[in-house]
Each structure stands twice: as C-alpha cells, then as structure tokens.
C-alpha cells in the first residue's frame, strides 16, 4: 500500500504542497524574530491571492499582478503594524480583524467583479510558470522531483536562504533580532525599534503575498473563496516548532508537505473516513510540536539545574 512513497511524483507533490506553508512560515519566523505575533497571516495571504489574480487579469501581465500582490501584502502588514505599534492595539485582535476583513471582503469583491461567490474562473488571469532546470532535469529520479516545479517554489527556497543569511549574518538581521529579544535594550543601544519592526512587517507581507499568489496563480490558475484554508494558521504552529529559525521552519514545512500529500494518497487508497484523514496533517504537526517542545523544556530545566 505504501509503495507510492517510492514514486517521484509523490515527492514532487510534497514539494508543491510545501511551498505556500513554507512562505507563510517564513513570514511567521520573521515576525517572531521581531517580537511580534501575527494572526493575520492567513488573511494577508488571502487578500494577496485575490489581488494578484485580479490585477493580472485586468492588466494581462504577470509582473504587474505579482507586483500589486506584493504591495498589497506590504500594505496589509503595515495597516496591522500601524494599529499594533502606533495605536497600541492588541496584536491578536488586530490579526483577527485582518482575517475577518479578508474572508468576507474577498468574497464581496469577487461577487462585485466576477459575479460568482465561489471562484474567479470567469476571468483569464496569468500564472507563474513551471521551470525546468537544465542538466538537473536529465538526472533520472532527482530530476523528476526537483525540476519542473513552479517558479514560486524555487523562489521560496531562495527566500529561505536569503532570510537566514539576513537574520544571522547582517547588521539588519542582528538589529531585528535584538528588537525581538529585548526592546528596551535595543532602544538604549540606539536601534530604531519602530523602523526595525516595520521592516520585519514589510518582509512578512512580501512572503505572505507570494504564499497567497502561489495558491491562486501557481498551483491553481484562479482564485477560490477561502482558498488559504488554514495554511496561515498552520504556519504559526510551524513557527512554534522553529522558534523563528528559517531553516528549521523550512524543515517543518517539508514535514507538513509530506503529511499533507500522504493524506491525499491515503484518501485514494484506504478505507478510513475522508474527513478523519483530513485531520491527519494537523494532528501530525501538533504531535511533532508537542514532542519537540517537551524535549526543549526538559533540556532547559537541566541547564538551569546544572547552573545552580
């Protein structure tokens, strides 16, 4: 029954279903490093997914679509940032507000423009192409898995590397982490706390935007209502595993991609109830999270004891 684990197609779809969550996790990572908690990732992704589709449909250009999607992501994050940082609003509630506006607002705009409550398939929008990597695509199994993925998938890997480098090897990253660790100390060291937080929010917006646009302009070629379906929330759990480290975040996203794809295959091959299997990725991530955190807190305790 488990022979599908051997097929390259399976692993290729693992990578494909990892991509949106990976991008969302990156967004959550950078928020954690800057000392923020963004519940609105889900909503931001949804808004950008729709924005990208509509812009590319009306301008006929993929570049414009991606650009507007990105700007929308930054804009939404800045609205959130304005209320959290300048107006002292609670972070969780603001994130919820963004999510509410996104779930309802996207449907409202969809009805206004496409006349349908469910999807934008009446519009012809452009989408990110799949990329075949020369040389690599000729290697038998590896080529089938790694080559021919969507453009955004490769982009997400580049983002992970850049984000890691930025956080741990540049002055900007150091400042962001300092702000996240201890705001007062960072301020007294002359770091502009507000600017750092807004830079982090902008990056978060960009990652969310590509995560959302991958769904509506990559894996699917139109927008459907509520298409993010909890991936933004899942990314918060991934981030709790990674604790802000993009590389661990990437690894845990692969874990999610794996469990998500296995769910699809199990639904095809097993007798279990479909809905019960759909809970599997959530349960799997939850169990991984609990085990890792449990071990972590044990190690911390031991360290403290040995210090005494």
């Amino acid at each position, binding site marked *: 029954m488990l022979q599908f684990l051997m097929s390259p197609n399976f692993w290729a779809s693992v990578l494909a279903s990892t991509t949106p969550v990976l991008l969302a996790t990156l967004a959550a990572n950078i928020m954690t490093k800057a000392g923020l908690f963004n519940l609105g990732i889900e909503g931001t992704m949804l808004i950008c997914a729709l924005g990208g589709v509509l812009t590319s449909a009306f301008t006929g250009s993929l570049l414009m679509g991606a650009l507007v999607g990105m700007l929308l992501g930054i804009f939404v994050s800045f609205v959130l940032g304005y209320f959290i940082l300048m107006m002292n*609003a609670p972070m969780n509630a603001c994130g919820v507000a963004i999510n509410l506006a996104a779930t309802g607002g996207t449907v409202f705009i969809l*009805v206004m423009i496409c006349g349908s409550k469910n999807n934008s398939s009446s519009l012809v929008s452009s989408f990110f192409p799949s990329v075949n990597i020369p040389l690599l695509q000729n290697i038998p199994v590896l080529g089938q898995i790694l080559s021919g993925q969507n453009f955004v998938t490769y982009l997400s890997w580049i983002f992970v590397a850049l984000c890691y480098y930025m956080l741990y090897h540049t002055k900007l990253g150091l400042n962001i982490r300092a702000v996240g660790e201890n705001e007062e100390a960072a301020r007294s060291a002359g770091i502009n706390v507000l600017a750092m937080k807004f830079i982090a929010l902008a990056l978060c917006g960009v990652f969310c935007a590509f995560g959302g646009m991958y769904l509506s302009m990559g894996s699917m070629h139109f927008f459907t209502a509520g298409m993010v379906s909890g991936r933004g929330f899942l990314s*918060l759990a991934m981030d709790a595993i990674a604790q802000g480290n993009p590389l661990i975040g990437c690894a845990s996203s692969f874990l999610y991609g794996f469990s998500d794809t296995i769910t699809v295959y199990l639904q095809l091959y097993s007798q279990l109830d479909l809905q019960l299997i759909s809970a599997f990725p959530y349960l799997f991530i939850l169990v991984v999270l609990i085990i890792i955190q449990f071990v972590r807190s044990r190690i911390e305790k031991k360290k403290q004891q040995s210090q005494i």
Partner: protein
Amino acid sequence: MKKNRLDPMKYFSVLRIVCAIAIALAIVFVIIFFVSDMPVLAIRKLVLGPLETKRSFFNVLERAVPLIFSALALNIILRSGVFSIAADGSFYMGAVIATGIAVKIQLPNVIHQCVLILVAAIIGGFISMLPIVLQKYTRVNATVLSIMFNSIFFYVGYSIVSTYLLEKSGQWGSPYFPDTARLGNMIKGTSMHWGFVIMIAVVVFVVFLMEKTSFGYKVRVTGINSNFAKSAGIKTGKIILGASFISGMVAGMGGAIEMVGMYKRFQWQSSVNYVWDGLMIHMLANENPYFIPLIAFFIAYLRIGAEIMSRATDLDNEIVAFLQCIVILLVGAERFMYFIKKRHEQKLALQQAEEAALKGGA
C-alpha cells in the same frame, strides 16, 4: 460639588465604541455609494430591513443566541489573560454530541434536552482545557494550540457524524431530530426557541460568576497581572484551567442549543467560526459580560440587515466584514480618541496641583 458633576471618563469607553461603530458604518456607506447602482435602497435595507417584518425581527433575536454563547465563553477565558480560542472546537463538538444523543438515545421530553445539553457542555469544557494543559507542559502559545485543536475537532466531529450519524439517503446530514430532543417554539409564527431563555440564564450566571464571586475576581486579577496574582497567593494555573473549563462548557452548551433549537438535523459541513464573532463582541462589550447581549443583538441586526440588503440589491452581504474589521481595529486601538482622555487627565492633574498649592498657601 464633586458629586454633582458627571464624571466624563465613566462614559469615555462607551463614547469610543459608539464613535468606532459610527466611523465604520460611515466607511461602509461610502463603499456602498461607490459600488452600488441603488445605494439609497441598499442603505435603507441594511439599516431598517430587520424591522420591516415580525419574522425578520425575530430572526435577529435567534441569530444572536450562538453569538452570545461564544462571546460569553471567550469573555471567561480571555479575561484570565490567555488568548485561547478553543471555544470554536467546543461549539462544534457540542453540536455533534447533541446530535448523537438526540438521534441515538430515546428519553422523555425535557429530560432528553437537559441530558444532551449537559453532556455537550461537559465535553466542550474538556476540549477547551486541552490547549491550556498542553501549554503548561510544552510552553507552546495557547493561541496556536487552540487553533490547531479547532481544525482537528472540526474534522473529528465531521467524521463522527458521517460515520455514525449519517442518514443514508438524500443530502448529507444526520436523521431528523425527534421532538423530545428539540427545543420547541416559544412564539408561534417565528422560529424562536426556548434556547433563548436558557441563554438569558447563562448570561446571568456568567455575569454573577465573573463580577460577584471570588473565582471571577481571581480570574480577572490573573488576567490583569499574573505575577501580582501569584504573589497574592492565587494559584493562577488552577484558576486559568477552571476558567477554560467553564468557558468550554458555555461554548459546548451553545453549540448544542443552536443545533437542537435552530435546526431539524445536523448539516454543518463547514466549520461555523462563531468564535471570531464572539471575539469581536467581547471586545465591543469592553470585556464586560453585561453588555454582551446588547452588542450581540447589534451584530445580529447588522447581519440580518445585510442579508435582506443582498436579497433586494446587487450587493453581497459579506460587506459586513469591512465593518467588523474597522470596528475591531478602532476599538482595540488604545490611542483611538486618546486625546480626550489625555485632556481630561491633564485638567485633573492641574486642578489637583492648584488645590495642593492653595492648601500649602493656607
């Protein structure tokens, strides 16, 4: 002299909320004017629609019932300082369990309803405790855990219904509930059910619990400053656990009542997400359980108004989402209309300084 003067700060929070709602409504009206072909009709339907017929007015009342339950549930847990939204899972599972007991077990009238609401409440309570317990041992943010559990319990509940409680023929759904399990109509010609009365009782209970008992006081102190609470000898862990259990009970009860009161059979194929509305109502009520029913009626009124509007015009009822977003952002923002408070505080400080100077002079 001081007694006679009205203290403006007492009404400050009310004023803020009214202003936030007014601004949000104004923005929504502007949106309507821009996108609709018949803006005046749309606004009239949105604002006055629910009052036009008796039926739609009672729709508002019954729509408010689940909102009130989830807002009360959130009120209890959020005031303990833990941002857990596990009430959503409790609500859905409460409805599933109520369906199970209604369909599978035969009991006389009244007892049947009591049993199914009670069991749903207890299981809902345990579900809400899960994230809190896990947070203690793993130090993962309870918000994240509760969101994960909500998804899991939605799928588990759904699969319970489709494996054990499914009516084989026709649309997806459970068999029809027997009359002994349903909450009968209270007023003829409407779908108003006795759950409304239970809701009022629960509101009174929560107000009493949170405002008048030592447990409620401990919950509030823990929420405001958990370090202070600890050093004052309050066992914060136990208090939070207790608060989450009661919150889950209220949510589970709400799910059960909504299911057997409003519906003839279980047909929830997507997660209901009352918890976000509950959160908004909790915030608009200024964390005060007294005001929750009032605000819930207001939100339900808007929802019904929007539905009537979408039937009469070309606008979709999801326009309310913009309103919700703006209201939450503005009410949440401490700095919104801060200048009024600041001016008042400055005046007060000046007055005190003058009085002190007079005393010093004499």
